[in-house]
């Protein structure tokens, strides 16, 4: 969110300027998403309160699941689909432990209804790695010991990986901002910062090498 355009006045920008955490900003974007997804559910047809069959796109797979419309995405992932990597800590949008990506944008799964993300691409912590091969950010978290109990870790990783996708050259302040909504009771923040900045550095080096090779070949 640190690099979202500031030129036009938006409620989202206003919230950010007012010093609200990044997590809060994420909720707002999730709400906007929810409005947009209405179509995917055959618009005005009232559903519920009983279970409704839906198809969810998660980590590149399609899941068919029957859920009550009131189920949050976090509940659905954890209880109905067994994807327990996404954690629930506050269940009300104040800790970012449940951060997932909805179409690559970080969102709070506890503040998102599962039924609202039909037709969207959901990425959870389980979808970041390939089999046993960790995503760069996950590997950096291990290298720097950016975890203790690890309960905040999936949310932290999702926030940091998304930051690096939208801002390849973050400064320390950008990383702090990106995880300003992610609570860690064990106090692992300094190493989260170090891990994330390390990945940015690694990527710059790789990019530099690639550029060098391309230059030589040209």
């Amino acid at each position: 969110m640190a690099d979202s355009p500031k030129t036009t006045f938006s409620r989202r920008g206003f919230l950010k300027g007012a010093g609200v955490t990044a997590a809060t900003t994420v909720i707002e974007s999730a709400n906007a998403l929810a409005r947009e997804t209405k179509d995917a559910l055959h618009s005005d047809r009232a559903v519920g309160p009983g279970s409704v069959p839906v198809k969810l796109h998660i980590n590149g797979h399609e899941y068919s699941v029957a859920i009550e419309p009131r189920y949050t995405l976090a509940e659905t992932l954890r209880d109905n689909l067994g994807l327990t990597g996404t954690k629930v800590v506050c269940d009300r949008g104040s800790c970012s432990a449940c951060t997932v990506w909805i179409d690559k944008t970080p969102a709070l799964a506890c503040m998102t209804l599962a039924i609202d993300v039909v037709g969207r691409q959901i990425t959870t912590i389980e979808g970041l790695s390939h089999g046993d091969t960790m995503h760069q950010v996950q590997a950096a978290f291990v290298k720097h010991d950016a975890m203790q109990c690890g309960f905040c870790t999936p949310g932290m990783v999702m926030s940091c990986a998304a930051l690096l996708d939208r801002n390849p050259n973050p400064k320390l302040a950008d990383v702090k901002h990106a995880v300003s909504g992610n609570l860690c009771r064990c106090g692992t923040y300094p190493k989260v910062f170090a891990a994330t900045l390390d990945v940015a550095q690694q990527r710059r080096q790789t990019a530099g090498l690639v550029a060098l090779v391309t230059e030589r070949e040209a």
Partner: protein
Amino acid sequence: MAPQSDATKPAAPNRTETFVWGIPQNGLQSKERQVGRDEPPPLPANSELTYIGKPTERYDGPAKAMGKGKYTADINLPGMLYARMIDATIPHGRIVSIDTSEAEKLPGVRAVHVIEHVYGVAELRDPKMEAPSRYPVIRYYGQPIAGVAAISQQIANDAAQLVKVKYDTLAFVVDRSDARAEDAPMVFPGPADAAGSAGGGGGPKGVPQTGNVHGPQQKKNGDVEKGFAEADVIVEGEYFTQVQTHSALETHGFVVDWKPDEVTVYASTQGTSSVRNEFADVFKLPKNKIRVITEYMGGGFGAKFGAGNEGVVAANLSRKANAPVKLMLDRRQEHIVCNRPDSHQKLKVGAKRDGTLTAIALTSYGTAGVGTGAGTAGPANNMYKCPNILTEEYDVFVNAGPGAAFRAPGHPQGCFAFEQTIDDLAAKLNIDPLTLRETIDENPARKVERQIILERTNWRNRKPAGSDSGPVKRGMGIAQSVWYRFVNMNSSCEVRVSRDGSVELLSAVQDLGTGTKTMLAVIVAEEFGIPPASVGIRIGDTRFPIGPDSGGSVTAGSITPAARNASYQVKQKLFAAVAPQLGTTADNLVLKGGRVAFKNDPSKSYTLKQVTAKMPTDEISAQATRVAEYSKERITYGGVDYVELAVDTETGRVHIEKVFGAHDCGRPINPLGVISQINGGILQGISYALFEQRIMDRNAGYMLNANLENYKILGAREVPEIEVVLVENYIAQSSTDAAGIGESAGIITLAAAIGNAFYNATGVRMRKIPMTPANVLSALGKVQEVQA
């Protein structure tokens, strides 16, 4: 706190060994100790070792980073039900009736259980002082009443709403000072005591009680009257600290699968043993019918020991429904289930002109709600040499959730008052605070730590208090911690070697995120000369040899010697088993760098695999239990933390800019993990000092901020620059000489260090935490004091 080592007799000493002793910065020395027959040879200093003392990646790091670790909250068993705890909506009263019929009728509900006994709270010495009742007396808002289990969490939540409880209300009090008044409503009609948990906490039993005031617990050394009479200077101060809630990210919770032949309990706990013990007690079951599993757990900080009300309710629901039941507290309940007690402390310290202490007197009042254990005298009694000390600790009952052990019980509170008073003394004597501590502190590690701080921080440029003229004032301060080398003898490990050359360790000990798994892997790795990641670590299951409950920083010091001894012993067994085939004797074999070699002919060497292939059986194993400390010396240890901060005297905001911590934990096993824990202690300490506070509604009697948006915890943007230095301190007490770091890791010192830096910045003493803008501005005399 855990049982101390002298509870068990040391093994019969039968050899003398020479151990490395002391602190590298002072030059290492050696010390002779008598050790038992089965003890491994002494380890040299870390600089001479391969894995111990070297940064090692967290054993379960990849699983945690990839979201694969299964915490209790993640357990999903076939047919599992979800439960919700129902709790009291009044702060004090009696239950007249509980109507569960509507809840039971809700489709999907499988069981309802009404609590008969509340655990974890103080109990009347004479239960007859209260009229007998079917239901426990409600003494705090949020006290567990019942549980309901259903086929989904949502249905369980709905059902919880349908349970109707009728109360007869009683007068209540939630404020510590109100509760001390003679006419205050009585939380208990007579004297009551609370037991501590396996993690400590809990107050003295059988002390006098007047109204809600329980105590004092008195500790006396010498004659304070005489000490004050001999003093050249006397400093006095009054200090206030708030109630802090543990706020572990994973709430307390259990999955219980009650089967007639065995009850399986998945627990978010700091002690698999403590859970098994309490389940056995409560349900009158033999321990061999209870299995407790904690593979991953999302933080405890002292709050999670034993069965808890939630464990007992989950078990009852599982038994009734004949299905596994998951019961996790919700976030509001987590804030109420236990806490760090508050304090009001009066402290008086007398000293000679050179700083020598002549007397310390401390009186503390604190509330642990409906529990006890609010004492704060640890630092005053144990940090410095002083011939005359008198401490008197009182618990004050109020109608609020019980206190519990919380990272260094009593010490952050005590240190906040005591280390600021020591700074006041330095100011009055016109001695530099670091220099004063050189006079009064005999601990050799802290001496080295102070020297490191002197050399590596800005301390020498420290200005007189309140020197800055602008509205933003900068300052620096230090504070020291003290903790104790507790050992829990219930610490055993089994190490197995398989014919394929793989090595694994099994123990019931749990990893709270402190890195127990990694530490054990490092110990085994060192003994076998194989990489830590290649060692199989299976812990957190009571089917394995018993492990210590992780409270009071006991784990590293208790379990690593058992791990090393088991590794050493299994190695000896392996040598004995294969020596004949190698054409030599067991005592001619040595394992180094992953190779087994002949001592008398180093040219003869084999890989571990080549050797294990010659084993007569597929597996060789050995089990070892912690033996008593090698000496009976009472050992304390601690750290020194340095803080630089800025105080905005117009807004009242305190901004921590830098923390430098120098810490001792004996022989560090995995510095990477130790530093993570110290960072965490420092940040939790800042959070405690600046932000956190339980706020009770005096008129309604409940916690107003039982959530994570209004109960403010330090976040990423409040993280200062942190630098940590570990001081190796060899004391030749066990086969590893390790000690835990959880308690002394900054949580004890930070509020005091920040207070001292605040004084240096502003010339004003902060006597109250949290240092919120309101409290800061009132200390600066800019606004009137606000009552929270």
